[in-house]
């Protein structure tokens, strides 16, 4: 098990399976939110389901719609359990705050997309700024 330290984030303690890519994120640009999959052909996670995953990505991009969209996705139980970024933008943090979706960023040990591997079990404690990975 390893423990990774990050900036204090938003939301509750959650555990789940990691889905990782060295790519960016926008709920508007990248997702088919009806079916819960990445739908942008150019995205490294194209075709994969994000539902109930701990998403691990580089940064957030694109427009402001993602803020409402996280709330909407969570209301239908078709959202990730948490999103970890190297660096979140303001929109995703604001959306996480409304949706009560767990979100953390700024990891002390470097690029989070290379520190966690898809399929690993991850526990996120946003208040303490700690992410533990079982291995």
């Amino acid at each position: 098990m390893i423990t990774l330290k990050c900036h204090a984030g938003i939301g509750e303690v959650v555990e789940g399976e990691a889905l990782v890519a060295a790519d960016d994120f926008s709920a508007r640009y990248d997702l088919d939110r009806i079916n819960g999959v990445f739908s942008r052909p150019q995205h490294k996670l194209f075709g994969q389901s994000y539902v109930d995953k701990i998403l691990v990505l580089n940064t957030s991009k694109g427009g402001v719609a993602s803020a409402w969209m996280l709330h909407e996705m969570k209301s239908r139980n078709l959202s990730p359990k948490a999103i970890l970024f190297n660096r979140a933008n303001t929109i995703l943090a604001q959306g996480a705050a409304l949706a009560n979706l767990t979100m953390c960023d700024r990891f002390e040990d470097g690029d989070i997309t290379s520190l966690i591997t898809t399929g690993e079990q991850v526990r996120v404690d946003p208040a303490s700024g700690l992410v533990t990975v079982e291995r």
Partner: protein
Amino acid sequence: MKLNEEEQAMLAGELGEPKRWALDHMLKVGAMFDAADLVPVSQAHMMADPESLGDAGVGFMEELAAHPAEDRRVAVPMITDPRGVDLERYRPLGQTEEMADLERRFIAACSAMAILMTNTCINYQTIMPPVQGEHVAFGDTGVVIYCNSVLGAYSNFEGGPSALAAGLTGRTPRYGLHLPANRRATKRFTVRHQPGELTDWGVLGAVIGKLSGSYWEVPVVEGLEQVPTSDEVKHFGAAMASYGSTPLFHLVGITPEAPSLAAVGGEGLEAIEVSEQDLSALRSSFGAKGDKVDVVVFAAPQLSLVEMQQVADLCAGRKIHADTALIACTSPSIYYEAQRLGLVETIETAGGRVLEGTCFYNQYAREIGEANGWTRLLSNSAKIVNILGGYGYKPALASMEHCVASACAGEIV
């Protein structure tokens, strides 16, 4: 976060539930970004289309709007970004009654809170542009990047919930671009190939946004030989914000915070040249001559009155191909002017459609694409072709002139 007496009263619920929610929301967001306190804002602008809101978001707004009038009313002037449904014209687009009902419910909730339904992403051209140094809480990335960069206002990207919190309280957490230190340049770009028409400006903005790559980078650009028009820099900024999540840029000798490179701290930065290959690589990823076109879209951002005239002039005396749709999206105030001046009629006579108070990509783009059999989309907006790939479209990019010519030919010319 340090709160004054009035803010503590808001947080305690003494000024009603909507303000309590807003304070709580701002504390969460402010903590993530290490805000020391709240900063007063003079205006708020909220992005909230029904596709993004869903039933959950509309329900959330209705709950806030159900509180007593004195509690729910916004504290500073608050305006809205484009709607997702043009209630006068949605049926021919294939939008459903369910979509329209969500829109109607949302409008009723906003109206109860005294939010002005301006339905525009070009408020800096049409409503009340902020002045240099004015703190505002604007949504829509294109609005924010324009107001920060061109006008020198201070705003973060405020998603709908945060813009609403700002509107209800007249404050926003002081972090990001509300702090002068974060407005200094972090990346320096040199332009050698001068942009011409609107799409060139969009492509240049897109390339710089892509190379900047994060909300926390501030590009400074040297080498532009011509001061852009408001429409040109609108496309430049909207594309940059779309590709890079970039909220602020400086143009040396042009934008107000950058009379010189030194003024934004750009001297010590390594200069990155924007090459012709960078520009053509971005263009070539979108469509090619001879490809069929299902729908030609002018939107993202909404058209100014000047752009409406340009589209109308290009449409005058021509006929849009029977298998191709042409859609132009503008704000309600510009629509009124364009109608009064005969521009709407000219576009419609050619077979085009003008939508009022919406923008194509936030009006259920996936569903209207499926309802109308639209996949091959052509636009002069570098922003919209970036967005719509994820919505099942095959987007292509061309100048406004080529877009109209292609709409008439039914294929990219």
